[in-house]
């Protein structure tokens, strides 16, 4: 007699029939790039998230071992492509610390100006894309309309809209142009003649005057929006201990209540760039928050970014005021064949998404022995797996979006 166990022998896979495996695949509008999230769900509730990275891995660190730092600058652009200037700045500062290069005042002021303007542009994308993830289209388009003007201004300075390679070892590559045609978006929005010419500083001032008045629109559309609050407040809670343990930095850390900003508390080689500049560091909790908001939730992180835009605008204005009287050149001569000392350096800078760290090991050659880029989004994303457990499927874009990640930086 054939026993039941012989005829019905099944090979059991690790398939749990009470759960559904949903692939929030690499191509997805809400994953901020090519991120694959494998969600194990029971109906609408998520049991576990497994993130798969590496779809945008372009071996930047291996390439960094075969190029001189000046040649590697374009690769840092493409890491966090929404904040290319800040990536360049982090890398350039690390190499300058290794070489012991000190820059003239004008180069420093230009770097602050451009890096903070890029922070505004990057946060506009972060905020707009977050709204888009949650279903609203208008803030996204308004944010991109503003960002268009910033990109036009950057194009006038260095020739590129996204991958600038503007801040390099030794300073910046170009000075601010004295005479530009007004960016078309700015002309349309402020009702000026599209053919008018003005200096870059005047165009930027005109833009900032316009933008400052529009920030309250974003607050009405998103921050104080009843639906937005319902979808973001009280969700994705990160306690301050967890945020520190998971290496979260930037708005994620400050949204959880830890008062740490590298522009004020970081390496002296970096903070001296911001000496003489007056800016506040927004940290949760906020007394003006709606009552549903909890410390460390999505709304807090979003609001930190909104406030950082205001602070960045202040910094740009201060830099523009310092620029005419800043002494020195915008660049010191630096030969590409300069040999790096047999030493190592690790420097972190405050990029819009967090603390981006560059670790260079020199061994006497002009090419670094090891070029490591520690990405802020990489650490910020590592907490998403734990955050998304037990939430509804629809909350996953809200949580991942609030971390404001860029896959280019995560995968390098």
């Amino acid at each position: 007699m054939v026993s039941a166990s012989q005829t019905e022998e099944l090979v059991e896979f690790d398939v749990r029939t009470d759960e559904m495996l949903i692939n929030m695949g690499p191509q997805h509008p809400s994953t901020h790039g090519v991120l694959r999230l494998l969600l194990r769900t029971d109906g609408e509730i998520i049991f576990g998230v497994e993130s798969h990275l590496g779809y945008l891995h372009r071996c930047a660190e291996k390439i960094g071992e075969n190029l001189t730092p000046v040649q590697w600058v374009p690769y840092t652009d493409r890491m966090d492509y929404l904040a290319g200037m800040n990536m360049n700045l982090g890398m350039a500062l690390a190499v300058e610390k290794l070489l012991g290069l000190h820059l003239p005042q004008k180069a420093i002021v230009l770097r602050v100006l451009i890096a903070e303007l890029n922070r505004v542009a990057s946060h506009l994308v972060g905020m707009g894309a977050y709204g888009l993830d949650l279903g609203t289209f208008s803030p996204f388009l308004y944010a991109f309309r503003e960002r268009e003007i910033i990109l036009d201004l950057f194009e006038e300075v260095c020739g590129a809209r996204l991958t600038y390679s503007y801040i390099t070892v030794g300073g910046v590559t170009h000075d601010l142009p004295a005479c530009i045609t007004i960016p078309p978006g700015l002309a349309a929005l402020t009702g000026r003649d599209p053919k008018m010419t003005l200096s870059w500083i005047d165009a930027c001032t005109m833009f900032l005057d316009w933008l400052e008045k529009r920030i309250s629109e974003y607050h009405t559309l998103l921050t104080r929006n009843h639906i937005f609050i319902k979808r973001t407040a009280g969700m994705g809670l990160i306690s301050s201990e967890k945020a520190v343990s998971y290496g979260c930095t930037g708005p994620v850390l400050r949204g959880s209540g830890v008062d740490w900003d590298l522009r004020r508390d970081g390496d002296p080689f970096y903070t001296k760039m911001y000496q003489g500049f007056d800016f506040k560091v927004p940290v949760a909790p906020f007394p003006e928050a709606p009552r549903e908001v909890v410390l460390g939730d999505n709304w807090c992180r979003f609001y930190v970014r909104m406030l950082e835009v205001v602070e960045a605008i202040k910094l740009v204005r201060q830099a523009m005021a310092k620029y005419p009287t800043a002494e020195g050149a915008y660049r010191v001569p630096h030969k590409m064949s300069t040999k790096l000392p047999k030493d190592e350096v690790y420097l972190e800078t405050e990029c819009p998404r967090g603390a981006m760290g560059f670790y260079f090991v020199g061994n006497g050659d002009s090419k670094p022995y090891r070029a490591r880029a520690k990405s802020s989004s990489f650490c910020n994303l590592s907490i998403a797996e734990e955050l998304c457990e037990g939430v509804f499927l629809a909350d996953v874009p809200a949580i991942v979006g609030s971390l404001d990640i860029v896959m280019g930086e995560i995968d390098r």
Partner: protein
Amino acid sequence: MTPQQIHELLVETFKDSIESANLESLEPHIQVKSAAIADVCRFLKSDHRLQMTHLNNLCGVDYLDPKTGVGRVEVVYHMQSYPLRHRICIKAALPRLGDGPNGLPTCPTVSNVWDVANWHEREAFDLVGVHFEGHPKLTRILCDEGWEGHPLRKDYIFPTHYQGVRAN
């Protein structure tokens, strides 16, 4: 605390496990025996004089002398303290080949000390080829799961074919 004081405290607590230190470098670092690295990191995080709450960076560096073929793999830990505002760098030197799976050198994991080390160690395993003992899920993170070899090694040969298709 200055790096000098941190080094003295570590030597006092761990004695022989602290091999050497280079405190004159731009990034003062302390060499620690790889077997003791998890205990040292736990001490660095929990001791009230140190309180290294934040792990800035964890990466592997492959040192290989091309002429002699002699080398080592170092795992580098950069950490800092938010409450006490000091930083230090710890390094663990490992042989390039060891008795881990696939002949990789082994190093204890610190993912139970800092949660962020989980993904950083996966990346170090993936790119530099260090097996972290005790890691909850040591799989490749950036390269494809079926990838062979560890790209950031100095003797890595780029494959010409991938899964049968010519790629180089």
